[in-house]
Each structure stands twice: as C-alpha cells, then as structure tokens.
C-alpha cells in the first residue's frame, strides 16, 4: 500500500521564475573537492588496518564444463588469507537482480569467457593475482552459441519472446500502396565509466558487514550480499558516496564485486578491497545489448506509414539479468516520435555464451529507436524525398494519431514544435542545399546532414520501482541534513535534490548537506536509473521538507497569532505581515516547543500502470523530447569521417538546473555518437572479447567531438505532469541524439549512389567504406 505524504496542493507549484534556488545553475555539489583532488572515490578512502586485496580468476572458455578446480596451491601461496570457490558460499551463490543465472563463482559450468571462477584475498593485489594463477583449472570445452543469428536459429532464449501490437499489421502491410523490408545490426557498447568496478567490505561486530560499493543500487547490493552470506538484510550496510561514472553499468553489475569482497571479509574477519583493473572490468562486466532488427513497412506516396512489423532480437548474453525490461524498452521505443497505425513488434531475448548484457543509458530504448530511424531513412531514399519530410509526415499528432503501440495516449507531444524550431535555428533547409551543391562538385569528399527527433518515456516500466524515500533533519542552528535513496554518479543528482530542499525551506543551498547514500538511512530504495533520480528523490525530499516546514509554521504561527498557511519561507527567513524570523531561530523555537524537526518523505509516481502480458497500459508518467542535427564529412576513399557541426534542442521541462542539464545533453550526445560510430566490441571465434582496453575499444576523445557544438534547452519546456517543479528527467534521453550522427553518415553514403542505404552500427570507417563500395558497385 502506498501512503503518500501530504503534499501542498498543485497551486503552490511554482514556475522557475518564482524559484530562488531550484531552477538555477548551481555547480555540482562536490565540484570544489573534485578539482582539488579531495573528493574521495572508494579507492581513495583511507585504507583500514589489515586490508586484504582480492583478485578474481576469470574463465578462459566461453562454454565449458569445469572438470578440475584445485585451489590448494593458491591457498598455500605467499600472503594469501583466503580462497573462495562456489562451494564456499554460505548462502546463495547468485547475484541475478531479477532472475537467477548470475553465479558469484562458476559452479561446474562456465558460460562466458571472463566469467568469475574463484577469488583470492591476499596482502597485496600482486600476491593475490600470482596466487590465483597457481590454481589448477581444467575444462572440457562445449560448443558455444556466440551470435544472435545462431541463437535465433536454435530458439535459444533467456526469457520468453514477447509481442506488442495495435491494429492489424499483416493486413495493413498486404494492402499497403508501397512496401519495403530491411534489416539493421546495432552493436553493443562498453560503459567505460572512468572509475572501474570497486567494492570494499569491512567486517564489524556481530558478523555485520559494511560494504562500500560503487553502485547505482545500494539496496540491491545489501540484499544480494546478505543472501550470499545467509544473514538478514539488517546485518549488511551498503554505502555509496559517489561513483566515477556508471551509465547503467553499475545498476546490477556492482553486486558481484560487493558480494565477493563481503564473502572474503566474512571468511577472514579482515577488510577486503576488490578493484578490477580496466581489462578485467571490460571482460567481466555486461554491456549494452547488441540487436538485430528486421522491419517490414507499408507506406503511401507521401511517406506516411500505413503498417509496420518489427522483429527485434536482443543479445542478452548468458543470463537474464535485466534483459526482460531492457528488451521491453526497445519495443516501447520502436515508435520513437512516430505514430504507427497498424503495428506489430516481436521481441526475442537471445541467449549466447557471452557476458550477460545489462543496463546502459537508454536501457534498450536507443536500439529500438535506431530501428525506426533506419525505416524513416529507407522510405525517404525510396521516395527520393528529404528524410526530414518523411519524419515529419509521421510524427505523432496532438489530438488524433496519438496512440502508441502499447495503447498509451501521448498527451504531451511537443515534437513538431521542437523540430520546427531546431530546423530553423540550425538552418537545416539552407544547409541541405549547400551540401547538395558541395557534393555535386566534390567527387571524393562527401558531406551528410540529418535531423532526428527523440521521444523517450520516463518511469521504470516495472511499476513498483517508481517510489522513493528521503530522510531529512533540521538542526537547531537551521542547517539541514538530507539523505535519499538516489546515488551520485556525476549527473548532479545530489545538487538537484539539495536545491529542492533549500527551495522548500527558503534557505541557501549551502545550508543543506547531502551525504553518502546508505541503506541504513533510507531503506528499500530503487536503483538510480531510468533517468528517474531527480523526479523520484526530488519529490521525496520535497515531501519531507514540507512536513517539517508545516510543523515549523504551526509553531511560529501560534506565537505570531497568524495562520500557519500565511507564513512564507524565503531568503533564510519566515515572514508574515509585519513578522519576520530567521529560519534558524524558528528551528530553535520548534525544538523548544517539543516538535520534531526530523521526517521521512515518500513519493510514488502517480498514474502509471502496465499489463506485462498484453503489453498495454501507461508505463510512462510522461515523455522527454528533443531533436538534433548533425553534419558530417566523409572521405569516401578511406571511409574516415568527422563531425562538422551539431545542433541540439532539448526539452528538460522547466529545468531544475540548466547547467547540469546542458552537461547531460552534451555528454549524452557524445556517448550516443560514440556508440554508433567508433565503439566496436569484437569477439573472436572462441567467444573471447578482444577489445578489452581503450587501445582497441575507441570511445570518443576530444578530437572526435565537433568544435561547432550548439546545445540549447527548449525555453518553452514545462512538464504537463506534476513532476518536481515541472522539470523533466534528462539522464538518458540525450544519448539518442547521437542517432543524428549515424543518420548523417547514412546521408553522406547515400550521396554516392541511388536507393536505400545499407549501413550497420557502429558505422566505423571500415563499415562506411564498405557501404560506399557497395553503392558504387565496387
């Protein structure tokens, strides 16, 4: 049962112009410490006495039976305190977040190359690694399934296939005036958070364990660690001060390292640190799902879609992990910003003997969007029209043509306005002509231009996860301590939530302190994911602040003989008519009146519901919108390219913090662009990842980012729904602006010939070159 804390009515919701702290570009809460090298990440914390270092021995095979595992030589090595195998786990040997399937240590069977087999704790990491290599580990190799193709052929799935539909796609396709079919392969992506996975476990009294974990989901770490140790949840505390980046890669993935550190700490009675080096991190941890998407579309002479069928095959790797919800989200975003009248989307959750793929900014949504954008481009090339024209022709309507494939009505559609404004400010039409003229006169260097929209659904699609708690104390000097369930990974969540609390009390931001997220203070939290961090935790903090504010107002109202509701909290004061009192003074009075200055706050997102069997309902509270234009230049003799200019217009609603939001948009675009251009994961025929360091896996460096990069928040943005101060979530949506970079490359390739372009992602120079060669018939 959800008990919603009393929240002052809607009329009190202010537009940012009325806001004093929220809505302003306050710097990241830790910025000063970060530039001074004083912000502590887990590896920087003072090391406790007797600290052990843990090393994980990885599997060498993608699919094999372990026929011999003898760790005695490792255990007898210099400086070794403990060696743990599957047999030594007192509780459940599994850290699967939703479904089992992610063993802490392989138990007789390995299902990906790089899987954790056993772990060693020793006085130093070098000694632990040396010892681990001394163990005897023998395998009987089994045939692996390594690709989506093989998995589809064998119907080898981690979860049952799903189908979403509205209308009769087959009939519409049969009756369509024109019809095209196609296929696009979309690669995965390594998170490459700069701070790799890390955990430190410290044993305490009564066999309790405190785990410092670089995780987006402290509650889940607490729960899975307790389960592995076979102790109650209250025996484990998980604390996360900050992460050095996460991007979804520390939503479920952090649990394994926390569990191993905790198991070793419990076994030895000594603190244990487990830090993966970069190569091990890239081999061990899940990535963005690669997809194969097949489409079949019917449309009229204007390019308007009359019926469409998608087959989405996502590579989940060896276990379900979060793949159910991720593949659902790919289905949810196969429409992007377009109305699909008669639509069917079939989704297969393929199993392969590769690392279990996981959450990554966008959570399947980006892959779904890449599919429909490829369709838009194909229709345009086929009809010899500007792709933007075809895109616009298919946008959701406001009053009609506004039902999604999952039967939710789009009530907040602003995509036509955003695209119109961006087309104007980016001079899309003029540049389109200039580029045509340039390409006509340039046989080898070609330019391409593309404008793509983004519409992204906000909420966890698993309804019960859409809740949050906060704990707020006001001290008698008027300073405020705030805790909530959200975690800070660089997105600025702590700053935004502190802005909310300061706003509610009418005090300066520096009067509010937010410290580490810990399961001790706020229990049973959801992960900081699905872009929901400030929506959920901001509202929970607001609820807590309003409870305390009302208590203070009541006490002071009595003294002043006024109505509590007439007291205004502003500029560090309470005011009403001729009366005024410092906030700190009011806090003292409230305490003296024996009224509590501490409260929890709670929030549950309203309106949402979803039937996971029928794939119908309202999974999203609202949508975030935006659009981007990318221009590229391609050397058609080598396939090399560079971005010439990027324009982005993004709707962050009434932004909680414009500077932080712009940062999310810039970083999101670059990460999305990297995913679809240079970031290529490559496995060999034995299923071993060969791109396990930045030497072979290319994330964007500064030189890959266009110098001409024009990013703006949509000024008219305002959330129609009652989200925190009418802002919109901004963590994930901007990543999908990177699709315009990919589509601009498609456009450049298109200029080398006729008809529909076949280009898969990532569009590495090699793939671009091959696409050009295919087009030139060479």
């Amino acid at each position, binding site marked *: 049962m959800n008990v919603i804390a009393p929240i002052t009515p809607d009329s009190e919701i202010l537009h940012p112009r009325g806001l004093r702290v929220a809505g302003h570009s306050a710097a990241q809460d830790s910025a000063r410490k970060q530039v001074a*090298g004083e912000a502590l990440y887990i590896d*920087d914390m*003072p090391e406790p006495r007797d600290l052990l270092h843990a090393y994980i021995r990885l599997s060498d095979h993608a699919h094999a039976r372990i026929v011999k595992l003898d760790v005695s030589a490792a255990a007898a090595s210099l400086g070794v305190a403990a060696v743990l195998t599957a047999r030594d786990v007192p509780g459940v040997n599994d850290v699967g977040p939703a479904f089992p399937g992610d063993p802490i240590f392989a138990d007789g069977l390995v299902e990906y190359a790089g899987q954790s087999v056993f772990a060693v704790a020793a006085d130093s990491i070098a000694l632990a690694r040396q010892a681990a290599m001394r163990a005897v580990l023998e395998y009987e190799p089994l045939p692996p399934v390594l690709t989506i193709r093989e998995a589809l052929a064998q119907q080898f799935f981690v979860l049952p296939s799903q189908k979403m539909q509205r209308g009769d796609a087959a009939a519409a396709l049969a009756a369509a005036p024109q019809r095209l079919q196609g296929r696009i392969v979309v690669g995965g992506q390594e998170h490459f958070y700069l701070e790799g996975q890390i955990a430190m476990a410290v044993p305490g009294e009564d066999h309790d364990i405190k785990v410092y974990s670089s995780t987006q989901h402290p509650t889940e770490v607490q729960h899975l660690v307790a389960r592995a140790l076979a102790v109650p949840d209250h025996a484990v505390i998980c604390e996360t001060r900050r992460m050095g*980046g996460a991007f979804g890669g520390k939503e479920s993935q952090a649990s394994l390292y926390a569990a191993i550190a905790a198991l070793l700490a419990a076994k030895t009675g000594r603190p244990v640190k487990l830090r993966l080096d970069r190569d091990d991190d890239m081999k061990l941890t899940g990535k963005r799902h690669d997809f194969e998407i097949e489409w079949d579309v019917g449309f009229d002479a204007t390019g308007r879609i009359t019926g469409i069928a998608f087959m989405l095959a996502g590579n989940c790797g060896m276990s379900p992990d979060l793949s159910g919800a991720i593949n659902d989200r790919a289905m949810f975003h196969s429409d992007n910003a377009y109305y699909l009248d008669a639509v069917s989307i079939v989704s297969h959750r393929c199993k392969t003997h590769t690392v279990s793929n996981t959450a990554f900014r966008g959570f399947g949504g980006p892959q779904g969007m890449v599919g429909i954008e490829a369709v838009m481009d194909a229709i345009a090339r086929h009809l010899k029209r500007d792709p933007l024209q075809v895109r616009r022709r298919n946008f959701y309507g406001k009053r009609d043509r506004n039902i999604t494939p999952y039967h939710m009505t789009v009530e907040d559609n602003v995509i036509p306005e955003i695209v119109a404004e961006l087309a104007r400010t980016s001079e899309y039409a003029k540049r389109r002509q200039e580029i045509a003229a340039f390409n006509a006169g340039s046989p080898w260097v070609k330019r391409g231009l593309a404008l793509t929209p983004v519409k992204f659904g906000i909420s966890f699609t698993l309804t019960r996860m859409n809740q949050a708690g906060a704990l707020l104390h006001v001290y008698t000097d008027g300073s405020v301590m705030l805790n909530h369930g959200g975690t800070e990974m660089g997105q600025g969540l702590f700053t935004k939530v502190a802005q909310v609390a300061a706003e509610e009390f009418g005090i300066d931001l520096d009067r509010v302190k937010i410290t580490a997220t810990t399961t001790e203070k706020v229990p049973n939290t959801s992960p900081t994911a699905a872009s929901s961090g400030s929506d959920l935790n901001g509202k929970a903090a607001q609820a807590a602040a309003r409870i305390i504010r009302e208590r203070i107002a009541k006490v002071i109202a009595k003294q002043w003989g006024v109505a509590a509701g007439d007291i205004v909290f502003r500029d560090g004061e309470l005011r009403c008519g001729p009366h005024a009192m410092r906030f700190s003074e009011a806090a003292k009075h409230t305490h003296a009146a024996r009224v509590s200055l501490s409260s929890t706050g709670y929030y549950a997102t309203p309106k949402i519901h979803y039937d996971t069997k029928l794939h119908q309902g309202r999974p999203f509270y609202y949508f975030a919108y935006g659009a981007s234009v990318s221009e590229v230049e391609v050397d058609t003799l080598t396939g090399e390219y560079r971005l010439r200019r990027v324009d982005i217009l993004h709707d962050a609603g009434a932004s909680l913090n414009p500077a932080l939001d712009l940062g999310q948009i810039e*970083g999101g675009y*670059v990460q999305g662009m990297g995913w679809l251009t240079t970031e290529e994961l490559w496995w060999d025929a034995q299923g071993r990842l060969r791109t396990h360091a*930045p030497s072979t896996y290319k994330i964007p460096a*500064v030189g890959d980012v266009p110098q001409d990069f024009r990013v703006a928040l949509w000024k008219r943005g305002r959330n129609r729904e009652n989200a925190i101060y009418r802002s919109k979530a901004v963590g994930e949506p901007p990543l999908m602006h990177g699709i315009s970079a990919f589509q601009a490359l498609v456009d450049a390739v298109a200029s080398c010939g006729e008809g529909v372009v076949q280009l898969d992602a990532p569009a590495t120079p090699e793939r671009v070159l091959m696409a050009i060669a295919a087009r030139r018939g060479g």
Partner: protein
Amino acid sequence: MPQVTLTVNGKTASVEVEGRTLLVELLRDKLGLTGTHVGCDTSQCGACVVHVDGKAVKSCTMLAVQANGAAVTTIEGLAAADGTLHPMQEAFRENHALQCGFCTPGMVMSAIDIVATHPDGLSEAEIRHCLEGNLCRCTGYHNIVKAVSAAWPVMHGKVAAE
C-alpha cells in the same frame, strides 16, 4: 629495495619501493595522494597525469625510480596554502567542466601544461589537439575546452584573476 628521493608538492619524500613500483603507486599508496586517479592502468586515459619537473606525465607509465631526484606536482599541490584554487581548477569549476569528476585531476594537470607551453596564445583547435590523451566519458568535452580557454588569460596574467 631501491630508495627514491623526490620532492612532491614542495615537500621532500624518501621512500623505499620495489623496482617495478609505478610513480602512481608511489603517490597513491605510499604518500596517500589519492587525488591522482587510475582509470585504465595502461597509459591511455590520462586520469593519472601529474607534473614531473614541470611536464605533464602519465604517472602509470613511469616507474617510481625514474622520478628519483625529480620535483613532482599532483592535483593536491595546485591550490595555494590558504585554499585559493589554481586558476585552472577555478576555471573547471566555473565552467561546469566535470560531472563524475574522476577524469578531472588528470585533465586539470594536462590542461595546465598545455596553457603553460603556449604562452603566446592558445586556439581552441590547439586545446583539442593537446587534450587528445585525456579521456572523459561524462562531459562530451565541451565545457572542458571552455575551461581551458578561460584559464589561459588568467594563467598568463592577461586579465586580473578574481
């Protein structure tokens, strides 16, 4: 074990290290200067950049013994004794040039070297060229480039620092 004597942030330190100890390990593990981060372990991300005798160096690429006799400056050694930030630190903060902050110490150290070695002027294109060795996964680099540009005149005394 070899003995290394060096100056770190103005203070002399004399430490016993193994022959294979990296400079970054000396700084972090022996001297407790954990502001210098390790991002990739393999000389590619730039998170570990420090100054050795005034030059930017990836400290995971240099052995501690190679720094014998050298003057090393780390991110902790930039601010003045009274806590006043170095102009480059200030510029990063002012320009929102960080998100998770993990790349920031190395980025700031590289940026200072770039500005110092370009006394006659520093174009945006040059900044971009010189920062290629520092990876950031969060920001998209836009604000980092802005911060470096903003710090140049301050560091070269072309405008009065606030």
